[in-house]
């Protein structure tokens, strides 16, 4: 079918070569170019998501302990929305754009024509394993490419779910799932692709980009960072409660904090820290009455990484709430810390877990300098009613995106480009940006033979140069006079 299970050993290399060859043949054959093919794939994807919803939920629950409401809200539901959006807009995206042509080139037309890049590779990640696989797939297919998808081996059930179903609902020789671990990723990168999208850690991103450079393959990298949440005085109790709800949604409801756009840490003025903490504690209690309403930690390695962050001797005293860990079930309680040392690992590395450090500042404006001193994150959040502060945050900080008075929801707006800057990556997708990510915008100019300006050609003399000076200044009047003068 449309899957290749790359096992260890010499057989694996052969399998991948064959996979890549099939994809290239499918693309070169031309069928991925037609609107009909693209629509058929997108409709197939839609059917997959609708018919196999229960299996998808099961896979996400097995891999991450994700509640199916979270799975629907953050993955399945959004994917259905995106696929429908792509189907609706496909015609518009595919239409060449006419552009202006200077009079000197008359008669001529110019257009920008989008064309597929060819055969593209998508590396997905384990924390939003369906979303980070299929959202790029939507764009790649809408743009008319053949696609290889490599889901993360750290979310094996979802990986298998994709491997089993993609081929059944879509064109299996032009859309393939390749399962396996890092070695398979490396082997894939030995081939030439027309584009590679990688979602994951900076360390592996460097290796992917270095491998891509050998073939001059363009890449897009979706990385992470420490997404700060600046928390200003919120005025009324109602607004304070809503803000806290949203912070919790942006941290613990997002795969237990294991999300590239999850809130990593909070910055708040000293005097407001107590009220923030009080409302956080009470709301956490209300929201997470059962442990299965929060995802678990993906595996033992990450569990140990997170427990080390907490058990660091300089950090442990700052734990204010939570902190209990269940190694057997890979469950860590929602945990709040107050002012852990800024040079501790929890404040220098991306946490990617249910631990929330709260850092106090004297004045809320000091948060700006704090955030600027860190590498550029994928998202900056700020809860504030102060328009001037909002303006300063947008103007003075840099991040993939900025969201005011909410968290994580920017992901769902397909009119907004999704991607990082600096250490959080480069390249953007979602909505039409997905289509553009996997397209080449070809400049096409058409001329006729009606008018021929001989002054273009050698042998050169001063009069020709003078004419060209006028033309290039779009001074057509002077040009015509001079031209006529020359004739006389």
């Amino acid at each position: 079918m449309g899957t290749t299970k790359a096992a260890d050993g010499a057989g694996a290399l052969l399998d991948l070569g064959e996979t890549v060859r099939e994809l290239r043949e499918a693309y070169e054959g031309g069928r991925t170019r037609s609107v009909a093919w693209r629509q058929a794939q997108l409709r197939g994807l839609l059917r997959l998501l609708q018919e196999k919803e229960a299996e998808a939920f099961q896979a996400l629950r097995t891999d991450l302990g994700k509640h199916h409401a979270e799975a629907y809200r953050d993955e399945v539901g959004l994917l259905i929305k995106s696929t429908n959006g792509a189907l609706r807009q496909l015609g518009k995206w595919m239409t060449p754009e006419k552009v202006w042509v200077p009079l000197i080139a008359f008669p001529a037309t110019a257009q920008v024509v989008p064309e597929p890049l060819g055969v593209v590779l998508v590396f997905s990640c384990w924390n939003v394993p369906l979303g980070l696989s299929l959202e790029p797939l939507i764009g790649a297919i809408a743009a008319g490419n053949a696609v290889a998808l490599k889901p993360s081996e750290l979310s094996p059930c979802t990986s298998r779910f994709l491997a089993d179903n993609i081929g059944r609902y879509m064109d299996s020789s032009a859309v393939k799932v390749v399962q396996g671990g890092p070695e398979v990723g490396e082997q894939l990168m030995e081939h030439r692709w027309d584009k590679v999208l990688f979602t994951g850690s900076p360390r592996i991103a460097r290796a992917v980009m270095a491998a891509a450079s050998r073939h001059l393959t363009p890449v897009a990298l979706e990385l992470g960072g420490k997404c700060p949440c600046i928390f200003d005085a919120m005025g009324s109790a109602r607004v304070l409660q809503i803000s806290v709800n949203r912070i919790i949604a942006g941290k613990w409801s997002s795969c237990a904090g294991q999300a590239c756009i999850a809130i990593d840490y909070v910055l708040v003025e000293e005097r407001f820290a107590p009220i923030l903490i009080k409302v956080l504690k009470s709301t956490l209690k209300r929201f997470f009455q059962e442990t299965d309403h929060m995802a678990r930690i993906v595996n033992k390695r990450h569990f140990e990484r997170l427990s080390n962050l907490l058990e660091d001797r300089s950090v442990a005293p700052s734990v204010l709430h939570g902190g209990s860990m269940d190694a057997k079930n890979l469950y860590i309680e929602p945990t709040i810390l107050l002012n852990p040392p800024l040079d501790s690992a929890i404040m220098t590395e991306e946490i990617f877990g249910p631990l929330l450090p709260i850092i106090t500042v004297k004045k809320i404006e000091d948060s700006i300098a704090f955030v600027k001193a860190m590498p550029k994150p994928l998202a900056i959040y700020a809860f504030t009613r102060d328009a001037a502060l909002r303006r300063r945050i947008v103007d003075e900080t840099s991040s993939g995106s900025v969201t005011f008075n909410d968290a994580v929801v920017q992901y769902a707006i397909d009119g907004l480009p999704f991607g990082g800057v600096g250490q959080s990556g480069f390249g953007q997708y979602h909505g039409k940006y997905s289509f553009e990510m996997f397209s080449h915008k070809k400049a096409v100019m058409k001329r006729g033979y009606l008018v021929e300006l001989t002054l273009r050609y050698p042998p050169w003399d001063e009069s020709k140069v003078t004419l060209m000076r006028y033309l290039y200044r779009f001074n057509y009047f002077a040009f015509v006079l001079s031209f006529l003068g020359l004739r006389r």
Partner: protein
Amino acid sequence: MDAAVAAAAEARERLRASFASGRTRPAAWREAQLRGLLRMAAEMEDDICAALHADLAKPQTESYVHEISLVTTSCKFALKNLKKWMKPQKVPSRLLTFPSTARVAAEPLGVVLVISAWNYPFLLAIDPVVGAIAAGNAVVLKPSEVAPVTSSLLADLLPRYVDASCVRVVQGGIPETTALLELKWDKIFYTGNSKVGGIVMSYAAKHLTPVVLELGGKCPVVVDSNVNLHVAAKRIAAGKWGCNSGQACISPDYIVTTKSFAPKLLESLKKVLGKFYGQDPLRSPDLSRIVNSNHFNRLRGLMDDETVAGKIAFGGQSDEQQLRIAPTLLLDVPLDSAIMKEEIFGPLLPIITVDRIGESFAVINSMTKPLAAYLFTNDSRLKQQFERNISAGGMIFNDTGIHLTNPHLPFGGVGESGMGAYHGAFSFDAFTHRKAVLDRSSFLGEARARYPPYTPAKLSILRGVLKGNPMAMVQAAVGCTGGRRA
């Protein structure tokens, strides 16, 4: 090597501090720099032409038309559109996150590195810098050492016409370039050949730096028989020998035409060449010379290859001392000869013949994607097929090269001819981060269905919301949870 490393680090640190101070952000600063570049191009025109002549024996007309005037147009276009480009673009907010406003703000990447090429040493240095400045960045420019007189001129002129605390020229060869590449930049813009392009990208990978690579390739020209032959021949010649003697990334590299049409095309090209460059082309002042002896020997090698030497149909003369090669036409060289495997980048033009014009597509597609592809024909069906089946950075029907003068068209490659594009607004975009900004400052609605504890009723509201069901939207917006208070 240490001196190079120190110089590179110092330049970057200076620029980082300048950028951090916010100096490059206001429109006024950017406009002042662009006006400075305009003045530079106007006041120093003679010096620039002299430098280009020293480096390449470039005819003054080419220097003016292909380099200086294009820089001028670029600056003016940026000045005219700057405020528009800098303005955030509103994005229709979705009912999903009602109430909210969304926009995309344009933000400079920071401190960027521009490495330029030797063949259009003024244009390819300044044009990307125009984009970087318009987008509000600080820039280090590393001009090509293979055009040393222009490189020195740029190092001398730029500090006099633009803000030297934010725009720096670092001269040098491989050690200096490597020292620069070892550092972390917010973007690297490279114009040159594919091999070095790959090396630049591998350095960029260490710092996760995004790149624009403007590379080359073999730009094919397909010539059909139903064309105005004389005009076609002139336009081909203008794009080939009229562009730095074929040393241009968008110069026609080779021609494909039918066996029956080839003799006519050959005759027409010979006539045009005679008119343009006279009977002694090696002495024509209207032809650039070959940039240096390395490239001269490379090109001679391509011509002297035993499978190729006998196919010279016109020209073939050269003057090693003057580093000049005459416009040369070759007929039916073997497709596996070096001249058909590498980018020629010189005044040699092979003509490949096929039985039917449609077979030209297979020839082109057997090679890597070029920066530009050209087709001369009046057959609209052939044009359609060409557009659909040939992938190239850009494409022109019935002319060559001119698409790069249109600031509304993106200029860049695809596949091995490069990644990324510039010119016009695309230059601004190349050096800009599009930052998504979502503002939910009106706390009017609160969708409690979002939050745990999760219930089937809440899920059903979420389903409705994500499907765009208005009833569900309303329920969500008023904080409905579909059941008991949760």
